[in-house]
């Protein structure tokens, strides 16, 4: 320690740089804490049981229907995005040969997809599903839009997880006489599962927090629709609607708390699952 002090005495610039980077890190943490605590302090007193009643009325501004819609939305979106995401990651890592002409195109398109802003996804969903296919504002339009949106995320995380499986696993499986398919489903996928799962959970986080892509596709109708072809708002859209109506600031605080808690749980879950790989 003393040695360090002596060294730094000779190098004031080094000290300044060290202070600078530490300050930047401290600033980041400060911002996060002030955001989280501000919302918790203002929001928790507003968490009333009436906010969780089954039916939404303009009097109780209940978020229960929005929570149910969010769950539907998450499950259905994953049902579409996960098979496609995992399938294409398997193609990229296990099937595509070196020099394959399709692979660079797929990489370019996934990069493009992940760069498109969610509001543009929303407008696309509106033009394609709501207007052209004439579904109207419906959960289904939102589901397909979101599925396209989280596809690159699932593809990338699955690919990383598959690449992390040592080749000796595959060779061992082939050596025992297993075919390619059996190797993929019995050996490669199970050992990559934690990585895939952590990516899927991150995808859930994006769906839960999404607003801009949903307002013009799933709409902002209150209540739980009785089919996927009618509209409904998710929790994040619910919060946006409360704010833009301007009458429900207290309820918006409470909704923000629920969203924050959800995001926190999702994040920890994803990290917990991902850690399982490293500890193995």
């Amino acid at each position, binding site marked *: 320690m003393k040695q360090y002090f002596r060294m730094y005495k000779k190098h004031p610039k080094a000290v300044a740089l060290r202070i600078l980077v530490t300050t930047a890190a401290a600033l980041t943490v400060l911002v996060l804490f002030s955001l989280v605590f501000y919302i918790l302090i203002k929001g928790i007193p507003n968490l009333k049981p009436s906010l969780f009643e089954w039916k939404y009325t303009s009097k109780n501004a209940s978020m229960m229907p929005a929570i149910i819609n969010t769950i539907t939305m998450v499950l259905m979106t994953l049902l579409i995005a996960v098979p496609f995401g995992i*399938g294409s990651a*398997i*193609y990229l890592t296990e099937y595509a040969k070196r020099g394959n002409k399709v692979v660079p195109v797929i990489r370019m398109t996934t990069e493009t997809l992940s760069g498109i802003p969610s509001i*543009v996804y929303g407008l696309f969903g509106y033009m394609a599903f709501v207007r052209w296919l004439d579904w109207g504002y419906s959960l289904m339009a939102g589901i397909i839009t979101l599925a396209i949106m989280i596809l690159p995320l699932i593809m990338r995380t699955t690919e990383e997880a598959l690449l992390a499986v040592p080749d000796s696993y595959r060779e061992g499986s082939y050596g025992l006489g297993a075919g390619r398919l059996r190797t993929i489903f019995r050996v490669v996928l199970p050992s990559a599962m934690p990585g895939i799962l952590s990516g899927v959970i991150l995808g859930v986080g994006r769906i839960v927090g999404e607003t801009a892509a949903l307002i013009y596709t799933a709409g902002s109708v209150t209540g739980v629709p009785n089919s996927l072809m009618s509209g409904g708002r998710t929790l994040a859209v619910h919060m946006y609607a409360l704010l833009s109506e301007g009458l429900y600031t207290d309820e918006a605080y409470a909704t923000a708390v629920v969203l924050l808690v959800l995001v926190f749980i999702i994040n920890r879950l994803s990290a917990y699952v991902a850690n399982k790989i490293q500890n193995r």
Partner: protein
Amino acid sequence: MNKLREKSMGCVFLVTALASIFAVIIICLFLFANGLPTIAEIGPFDFLLGTTWKPTNDIYGIFPMILGSIYVTAGSLIIGVPVGLLCAVYLARFCPPRVYKYLKPAVDLLAGIPSIVYGFFGLVVIVPIMRDLFGGNGKSVLTASILLGIMILPTLISVGEASIRAVPESYYEGALALGATPEETVFKVMLPAAKSGLTAGVILAIDRSIGEAMAVSMVAGNQPIIPDSLLSGVRTLTANIVLEMGYAADMHREALLATGVVLFIFILLINLSFSLLRRRDDK
């Protein structure tokens, strides 16, 4: 039989892999097929360079919004990039493991917070602070830049950290052996070596900043005029869509969809020029 199954499953995987290509094609198709005729009808120059946005009089000029998006994005970079990259340096090189255990999840949480919550925080915390400091209603280019600067932090930090960690440890040890302090080494050796990764992080941050809709529309003031100072209100391309899409009809609605197309083209151009740049660097 077995052979057939192997072959057919290979095809299935190929088909799923082609889905992303298909998705990009239909997205481009729908956006351009809907947007370009509208732009042609309004007149490309009147639309892109017109400075008046008055849907009630059928005047659709989005130049103020294009400038607004550029100003706000530039502002967010000025605020976010130094903090984000310095924090990335701290995480990658100077952070004791004890602190890292808490700091890393904190950054991840920052990345996961929905933009609507950021917008709400901006509206109830940052806007009043700006109002007290500078007067006016507190919604301005500066406010939007600060909020977006916060929102791009997690992207900058995680991409920055990964690319600094990717620099071989031998660079670090070599510079230390030549007598440099750890700080000098990191800033003069490691950062230049991680340049391409850091640039990628900044590009991602630009994408996020220019494409952010909900949060910006809540704190930027949204006047459709060219802002004349940091403290005047501003409307971005994204905010233009969010604000008026709800009630717009006919030509007005088409003009908003075309605004989205302009935004989409912006993003494509940014990403394209970046990948060209990277290809040149690779050679």
